Each structure stands twice: as structure tokens, then as C-alpha cells.
């Protein structure tokens, strides 16, 4: 089997931001400071008129500019998104063309959210191990803020838009991919969804009708809906078990893990998990102040920031767990080594 490693991560943030100050002006009750205390977030980036293809292309271009890798070397593009430009074709095909990837490159979308980056790594590893390709560009991109009602503070305070670009290649030098565990529980699908717009409930004048829920949040079936307490409950039950499973698979103990990078859902959730799992603060990475919850991009963004902040050293074991919409979850442990290529 061929070994594979990560070889560079870049990310793109759209320029428009939604700050706590602006949120506080628009919603009654919470001050900017209170929003920060409750969520750990100071600002979120908003895609505005950018589509997922635009965001993915921007992340890809940034990647090729920052790292010494040519578009012509890519033989597979995996695009993780829940907001494709069209039902068909795959947005990845559009991105292939605009990034100038070769015609010999495969390209496909896969639709996962919070667990998407971990699944993307697993798909990449499978393709490389099987000897089918050698150089994979995994891009995560979402524009969830477009689906959030501006009077629904249950979601508006939390989510931001971003795209991340990660290169996974056959080789021995760099952070190596280990085993994975996966999980799904479709009974939870209604707790984090956009009800209208797909084939189950096409958009119509009826789906645009807004209603205030029992907690005072306003939205229509066209908007993102999140049952915060159910998601919290799911996360508290699932994430510790996922950690145990991947540790057992790799025959490691929790104490041997040097850094934990979980999907950055919100600070309150992360802190509750950290305490429940008895992970020391210095080993638990939280970095979402300036981004919010960017769905499948939270883990790659956190990983490159942790690396740039000097929090990772050669040989460190890094546990990644993605969990959320679906319900879907996945976990893996990277063995850290610095990227074989340096930034330009």
C-alpha cells in the first residue's frame, strides 16, 4: 500500500464580515461582549455574491500561490460542499476548469458538512493507497450564511463562510494519515438542515413563509434550521465515543495524543467536550474567534493555524474529529511532521 501525507493547507475567507457589534445592533438583548462570551466568536465572514465555485477557486489559487505545487500535478479534485452551484453538474468540474487542472484529473463533489474534512482525508487516502492517483487536492467550501435568516440568532451568531484547500500526496515526508473511524445516524437528519430547495420540498412561495418558533427565532423552510440542544446532546454522546474508537483502532491511549483538533462548532460546545473528556487545556485547540463555524473548513483552518502558531512538533499525534449534520461523524489521528514543501 502507498503511504500518503498532507503537503500544504491554504484557506480563503470572503472579505465581507459580520461582527458582534453589527449583530448586537440588529438583535435585541445581547451585547457584542455577551455574544462573544456565549459563542467565542467575534466575527464571521460572509460569501455575499460568491458561489461555492468562486470560493473553491479562490482557495485553490491561494494554495498554488503559497505552496510549490503546480495545478498540472493534480490528478484528483475532491470538493466537499453542501451548497453546490447547481444540482448538476458537480461544482468540482467547474472548479477543475477554472483552476486549470489537467483534463486527466478526476473531479467530484461530496456532500457532507462538519464531518466532511475527515471523510475527505479518508477518500483521498483510499485512492492513493489503491494506487489509482498520487496527488489529490481536497477543497472544502460552503456559503451557509446565504441560507440563514437575518433574524435567526440561533444560527446567525455561529456560522461563517470559508474555503480551504489541502494537498494530499503519495509519500513519506509530512503529516501522515492513519486509520479512520466513521459513524452515521440518519435519525438526526432533521436537527440540522435546510428543509426546502431539494427534491423532497422544492422552493415555492409557501416555503418562503416565515414563522417565529417557540424560542422567538424567525425563519422559513428556505432557511437553515438547527436544533441546538439536540445537536449538543448528540455531540456530547458521540464525540467521546469516537475518540475511544479511534484510539482503540490505533492502539493508543488518550494521554499519548499531543493535540486535539475537533470540528469548531462553537466554543461552549468545545469547552464542554474538553471537560467531559478530561483533555488538558493546552492540548485542546480552539481557534474560531475570527471565523465562526465554517462547516467542513473548520478543521483544516485550525490545523494550519495550529502549525503556524508553533503548536505542533515532529512526531506529535493529532486527533481530528468531525461531527454534526447528518448526523455524521469521523475521526482520525495524524502523525505530525512538517510539510515537505515550504511556503513561497
Amino acid at each position: 500500500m502507498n503511504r500518503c501525507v498532507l503537503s500544504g493547507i491554504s484557506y480563503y475567507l470572503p472579505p465581507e464580515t459580520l461582527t458582534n457589534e453589527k449583530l448586537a445592533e440588529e438583535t435585541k438583548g445581547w451585547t457584542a461582549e455577551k455574544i462573544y462570551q456565549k459563542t467565542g466568536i467575534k466575527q464571521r465572514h460572509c460569501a455575499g455574491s460568491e458561489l461555492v465555485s468562486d470560493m473553491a477557486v479562490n482557495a485553490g489559487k491561494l494554495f498554488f500561490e503559497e505552496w510549490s505545487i503546480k495545478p498540472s500535478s493534480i490528478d484528483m479534485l475532491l470538493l466537499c460542499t453542501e451548497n453546490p452551484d447547481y444540482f448538476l453538474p458537480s461544482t468540482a468540474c467547474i472548479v477543475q476548469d477554472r483552476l486549470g487542472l489537467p483534463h486527466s484529473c478526476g473531479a467530484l463533489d461530496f456532500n457532507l458538512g462538519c464531518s466532511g474534512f475527515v471523510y475527505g482525508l479518508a477518500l483521498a487516502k483510499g485512492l492513493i493507497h489503491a494506487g489509482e492517483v498520487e496527488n489529490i487536492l481536497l477543497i472544502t467550501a460552503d456559503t451557509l450564511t446565504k441560507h440563514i435568516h437575518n433574524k435567526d440568532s440561533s444560527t446567525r451568531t455561529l456560522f461563517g463562510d470559508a474555503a480551504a484547500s489541502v494537498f494530499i500526496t503519495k509519500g513519506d515526508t509530512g503529516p501522515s494519515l492513519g486509520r479512520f473511524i466513521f459513524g452515521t445516524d440518519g435519525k438526526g437528519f432533521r436537527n440540522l438542515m435546510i428543509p426546502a430547495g431539494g427534491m423532497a420540498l422544492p422552493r415555492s412561495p409557501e416555503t418562503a413563509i416565515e414563522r417565529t418558533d417557540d424560542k422567538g427565532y424567525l425563519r422559513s423552510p428556505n432557511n437553515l434550521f438547527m436544533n441546538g440542544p439536540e445537536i449538543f446532546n448528540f455531540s456530547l454522546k458521540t464525540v467521546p465515543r469516537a475518540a475511544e474508537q479511534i484510539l482503540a483502532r490505533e492502539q493508543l491511549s488518550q494521554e499519548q495524543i499531543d493535540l486535539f483538533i475537533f470540528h469548531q462548532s462553537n466554543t461552549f460546545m468545545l469547552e464542554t467536550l474538553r471537560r467531559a473528556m478530561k483533555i488538558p487545556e493546552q492540548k485542546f485547540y480552539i481557534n474560531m474567534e475570527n471565523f465562526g463555524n465554517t462547516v467542513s473548513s473548520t478543521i483544516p483552518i485550525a490545523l494550519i493555524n495550529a502549525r503556524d502558531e508553533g503548536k505542533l512538533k515532529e512526531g506529535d499525534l493529532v486527533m481530528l474529529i468531525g461531527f454534526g449534520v447528518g448526523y455524521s461523524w469521523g475521526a482520525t489521528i495524524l502523525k505530525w511532521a512538517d510539510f515537505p514543501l515550504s511556503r513561497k
Partner: protein
Amino acid sequence: MTDLEKINLIANALDIMDTDLTEGTELNSFKEWDSMGIVSIMAMFDRSFAMILSVDEIQQFRTLGDIMARMNEE
């Protein structure tokens, strides 16, 4: 745990500053009793009592007394 300690635990979890809280105080009288508040109470039960309450159960609570009674069951 005394009743006052239980009320303080709940008030801290919900980030409520009011000082005249009693068992009969209605949860709907606080703007903090929103989805974040429900999550905070779930976290409090998990942290302080090692109990994971279901969302349905927490949504049945009407007063501070309801929450305090559930603490007694531990």
C-alpha cells in the same frame, strides 16, 4: 446541596444576574431561557451531576423548582 446552592448553580449556568430567584420563578421570564439556555442546563447537569438529560426532558421544565427537583433525583 442546599436550595440556595442549587439556585446559584442554575443562575450561573444561565448567566442570570437576578437576586430574587425562588423555586417558583418561571423559566420563561428569562430571555436567557432560549436554545443556548437549554444547552447550558444540559452542560450543567453533565458537569455537576454526571447526568445527560434529554432535550425533551429539559423542555418540560417550567420553573426553577422543576430543575431543582431533577437535581434531587441524582
